[in-house]
């Protein structure tokens, strides 16, 4: 399996696709940094968690880095996974590969792991670069807590990307044509990203409670909530705390401690991991049961 991972990684890093993705990711990093520069300058606020505000401040026109990343991480995941299996099939390399003395699952495991590594490198590098330049820009070093929060954020983002990659890999096992699997993955992403949370849920839900509940079926919402809690400790937005009829105005404007934040996002984390595992498990089983056909 190590051989397959190494080959897949070599493929990724020499491909134009990956080059474009890196370009995109760095562009997003630059945009986020610019947004933070505008945002922090126009609203200095209190001095707590200044370093984290690099990632969460909105500019005048540009959204914050976490919103931008939430937008493109699914795209990265899909791009890394949508042709994992069916391109091998149409290229005629799959039957040749499976005729080698390797376990069948090491093919799909190797591909998935190589994708995860690529994804991790992208996310970690953009967070690292923004952090580094941000440090120069604001001159306030991060506290230990901020570093832990950022690290958790990176982990979350990788898991979120892995979920979308698992979806894409699943479609690449199910559909024989590369274009079909790409379109299907993008369709799922559009559905959850726009139609579900912005149109269907508000139309269906009668109460706020129900709306929050329904919204949480979308992996996008889970990720959004989790990252907001992690990187915006003072945040008292929708859902999470307003459960029940509690009045927000009674709440103290204190930041949540790290432990409390983790406690709050724990369900989101578990759900995201579970979703990724379910998607991957389905594609794994389908791939293992699929026969190599003569036609």
């Amino acid at each position, binding site marked *: 399996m190590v*051989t397959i991972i190494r080959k897949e990684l070599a*493929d990724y890093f020499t491909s134009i696709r990956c080059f474009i993705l890196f370009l995109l990711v760095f562009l997003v990093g630059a945009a986020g940094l610019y947004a933070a520069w505008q945002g922090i300058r126009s609203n200095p606020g209190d001095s707590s968690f200044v370093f984290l505000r690099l990632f969460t401040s909105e500019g005048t026109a540009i959204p914050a880095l976490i919103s931008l990343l939430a937008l493109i991480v699914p795209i990265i995941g899909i791009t890394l996974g949508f042709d994992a299996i069916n391109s091998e099939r149409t290229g005629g*390399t799959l039957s*040749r590969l*499976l*005729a080698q003395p390797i376990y069948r699952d090491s093919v799909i495991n190797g591909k998935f792991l190589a994708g995860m590594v690529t994804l991790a490198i992208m996310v970690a590098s953009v967070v690292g670069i923004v952090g580094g330049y941000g440090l120069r820009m604001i001159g306030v070093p991060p506290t230990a807590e901020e570093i832990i929060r950022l690290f958790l954020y990176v982990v979350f983002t990788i898991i979120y990307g892995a979920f979308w990659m698992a979806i894409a890999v699943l479609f690449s096992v199910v559909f024989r044509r590369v274009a079909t699997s790409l379109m299907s993955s993008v369709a799922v992403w559009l559905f959850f990203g726009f139609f579900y949370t912005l149109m269907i849920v508000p139309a269906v839900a009668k109460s706020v409670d129900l709306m929050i509940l329904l919204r949480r079926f979308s992996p996008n919402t889970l990720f959004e909530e989790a990252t907001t809690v992690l990187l915006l400790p003072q945040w008292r937005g929708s859902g999470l705390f307003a459960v029940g009829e509690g009045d927000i105005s009674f709440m103290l404007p204190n930041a949540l401690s790290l432990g409390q934040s983790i406690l709050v996002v724990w369900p989101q984390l578990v759900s995201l991991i579970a979703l990724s595992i379910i998607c991957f498990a389905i594609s794994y089983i389908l791939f293992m049961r699929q*026969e190599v*056909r003569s036609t």
Partner: protein
Amino acid sequence: MDKNIVVETKDLTKKYNGTTVVDQLNLHIYENEIFGILGPNGAGKTTTILMLLGLTEPTAGTATVAGHNPTREPLQVKRIVGYMPEKVGFYDSLTPRENLKFIAELNNIPYHTIDAKIDEILKAVGLSKQADQRVGTFSRGMKQRLGIADALIKEPKVVILDEPTAGLDPEGINQILDLIASLPKRGTTVALSSHQLYQVQRVCHSIAIFSRGKVVVAGSLDDLGRKALAEGHYRIEVEVAQASPGLADILAKVKGVSKVETKDNLLIVSADSDLRAELARTVVHANVPLVQMKIQEFSLDAIYMKYFQEKG
């Protein structure tokens, strides 16, 4: 030639959604022979090959490859069997050398021997000059050659080639056939499926003709021809300068001759052994000028057509 059986199938059957693709197949491939698998499209050749490799599970029956069951011990089988699929494909962004290296590594070939091995095998298939060109730029025929190199890189005990000469130019075909013919000497048993009857006839020791999932006929080429075309007899064509009405009767009286047919200047004699010398003497004795005489060679074409005509 050794007579150890390397590949054996017993009542091997495969059904896809109720359609029987391979039907109770019994095959024997002996060690160090070149075995030709023939048959029209959709006869179950590729499915049989996939079952031999353990890539597809049989519905019923068993296959044995060098003592291993491909369904239960796929890794053992894949370790000793080289396979070239019909529509062979490679990673287009890599060079042939890199493609082969990947496969060699998957087969745990000792790292320090890989490069030398790749050079050797690329030379054997005539791709040395293109070794560092991207496979994406290759023609079909070049990929086909690389496919053979790919099947041979692990130095397999058995190599299964599905249509190895498809898409090759005549010179390439000759080169590949020579390479295939040289494999038994290196201790490799070859099974090759093909539509190209002439090529099969040139290199194969034994063949099996498939039709609708069954083996219609199997055996060594000479036996088959005699069995199929002359009901076990030799057919000798005798051509004379001009038709001579009495000659047929005279020839029929020669000992061992069972039947004489006349077509103008040509007499076709069926006999139970090679009676050419005897017949020549008789013709000359009868004062008929003999132009030429030849024993009919069994072309695979004729055998093949014969079986499929009978089937209707």
